[in-house]
């Protein structure tokens, strides 16, 4: 089982769209996939038309509840979701109270290994105990980055944090919400990148097709497979699969 955290310190960079669309493509590549919606805003849960579960996380952390019971099937065979739990906003507080607080997520994942080939974490922004748990549990962090100076700065902050805390988390990044009409976006996309992470060549464009996910409540490749965005997510997946052993490319 492989685990990938979709993460950025900054909000609004296309994390959830990435998690949902990559999860959907992963299934088409033959992987049994679970998206774990860790973001209390529950956008991934909303996209899949699933109702969030309430008041479960405390029991989950203390091992009294079967994580499996909270999982819901999406409309796409092979793709399941662990819905956002509004009480996850208290997760940091709870994590503070348990021993080995930065390793709790890793512990929770163990029983899922027989059921899934891939787990994608849709992470909340900011650096917290939840995100540090993801850093330690995931095989790789995939960081959507908007081609702006500020976004690049937050990526560097993340890489500093990983370095300072001596984590061996593998970081991959790609440009997200890139608007080729803007010269700054074009220039930044063409410029050098932070050498501490693997930079993927695929670029997810800023497009209305992706914004429409909110109305469609479906992954882009369900309603607009021929669109630039649909193709871009498939290309991003294939590139990611070429970098991480154990992930299949699309047939």
């Amino acid at each position, binding site marked *: 089982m492989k685990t990938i955290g979709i993460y950025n310190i900054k909000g609004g960079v296309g994390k959830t769209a990435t998690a949902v669309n990559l999860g959907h493509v992963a299934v088409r590549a033959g992987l049994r996939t679970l998206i774990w919606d860790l973001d209390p805003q529950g956008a991934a849960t909303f996209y899949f038309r699933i109702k969030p579960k309430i008041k479960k996380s405390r029991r989950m952390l203390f091992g009294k509840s079967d994580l499996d019971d909270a999982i819901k*099937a999406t409309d796409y065979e092979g793709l399941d979701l662990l819905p956002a739990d509004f009480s996850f906003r208290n997760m940091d507080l709870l994590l503070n109270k348990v021993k080995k607080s930065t390793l709790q997520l890793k512990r929770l994942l163990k029983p899922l290994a027989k059921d899934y080939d891939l787990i994608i974490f849709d992470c909340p922004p900011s650096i917290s105990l939840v995100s540090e748990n993801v850093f330690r549990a995931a095989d790789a962090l995939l960081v959507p980055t908007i081609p702006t100076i500020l976004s690049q700065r937050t990526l560097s902050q993340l890489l500093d944090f990983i370095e300072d805390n001596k984590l061996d988390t593998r970081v991959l990044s790609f440009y997200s919400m890139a608007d080729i009409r803007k010269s700054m976006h074009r220039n930044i996309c063409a410029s050098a990148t932070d050498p501490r992470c693997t930079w993927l060549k695929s670029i997810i464009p800023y497009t209305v097709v992706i914004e429409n996910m909110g109305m469609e*409540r479906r992954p882009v490749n369900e309603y607009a497979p021929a669109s630039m965005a649909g193709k871009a997510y498939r290309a991003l997946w294939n590139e990611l699969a070429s970098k991480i052993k154990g992930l299949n490319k699309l047939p």
Partner: protein
Amino acid sequence: MLKQPPVCFFLPAGETAEKICKCLAKLMDCQIEPLVSSKLRYLESFDWRLHQAGLQLQQTGSRLELQDKQSGEIKSVARVKGLAKWPMDLPEGELRTSLCKILDMRALIPIVSVDTKSNMLSLRNADEKTVLRIRVDQYECHAPGVAKKFELPARVWLLPLKGYESELHQLEGLLTEDLERAPATGLLDEALSAIGRKAGDYSSKLDFELHPDMNTDRAMRLILLHLLDTLVNNVEGTKSDIDSEFLHDLRVATRRTRSALSQVKKVFPLAVLEDFKARFAWVGQITGATRDMDVFQLEFSGFHKLLPDRMHASLEPLREFNEERRLSEQRALKRRLNSGQFRDMIKQWREYLLKDPEGGEGTENAGRSVLVVSQERIWKMYRKVLKEGRAISADSPPEDMHELRKSCKKLRYLMEFFRSLYPEKLIGAQIKVLKVLLNNLGDYQDYEVQADKLMNIGEQMKKEGNAPTETLMAMGVLVAGLLERQNQAHKDFASCFAGFDSDENHQAIRTMFKPVIGK
């Protein structure tokens, strides 16, 4: 991913998938998906090794799925190009590992195909989220390569979605009133039955019931007919060169037939006996070369164990050389199995065996009880094995070991032919003891044969200018390793034979087989 298994109902005869879909769509908010057609092929080894292991293997498109036959649980999955045949050619993973272990040298062959037309409905909640899937499958099956199709009972499947089990139970309750429950598994058996087959309908093992009162003529005809069926069942697979075990089973059936004809004397008239003994000897002869080369190809992994890793690649020219010759022998074998001589032999032998034995052949043993005749034969052969085995010393020539092996094989065949006449526990134990001795003698002879063959092939390769130095060197190392193993087998002989030549064994054999004077 899914804890709740699917729920299944039979669609009543006369009802159509379209009708039930329309009825369900009227009852609830359903999305009707387009009709999907799929072709499912069940794959097995010819001798049903997956079935014996409680498993079944199915391929739909490129998806290969190994399932528990009883529960339908998916054990492992792989994606393949074309129809799967050899387990070792599958992509690395759990499925390949399992199949390699179970099938060993056997290939997968399609046993039955099921064409399915699926109507799918998605039941949705107020958020338009799918909470349950309903699939109505209509099936038609056919034997591989046969156009005639058979319809199987259609099924309605409720496919639960994780986290939405209550919706499943609601609809399940509703449908239970009108529809008959169907098992979620069993499609394979239904399809097999429709094409006139049954899982496990072939085994090379001797499996028949003899009765002590049966006369020997009748019993021998039963045994020989069973052997003839085994032989005939393996002809097509041998001709098509599907895997090496078809020819192996064909040869074992031939050898057993020859052994039965020569060991159980004075049952059939001499002229018939001599005629068919010669004809079965011919079958042994025309199949020998191909089998030798099959064994050689199968032995390659064993050869690798006798060589250092870096020499493994040096054996590749040898493998290619042998394979080329094997294919040529295989073609010659196919021509002979297609010949009138072979076909006539099979036909005439069957006709002879099916003749009514009540007519009486006038031979000495034909009318005697099979129990008594079998006791005499086994006792006599047992004493011969003891005599030959006891005469073997560390200085005995290889021929003596070979002779002993032949006698042991005859004894084993006799025990296997007449197994059902004796208490299973006792005779089973005897066959086991004999197998240990036979394995030792087999190893002794096989190592020698392989070493000789390697030397002959080395000569041939050299003559044809087809012998890289490193290959010849690797073959030299192999010959030395094989002869060393043969030597070891000779050393082990004494202890293996002692296991057979024990007081406990004598007692058991004496009780079962020593003829009672006067019978």
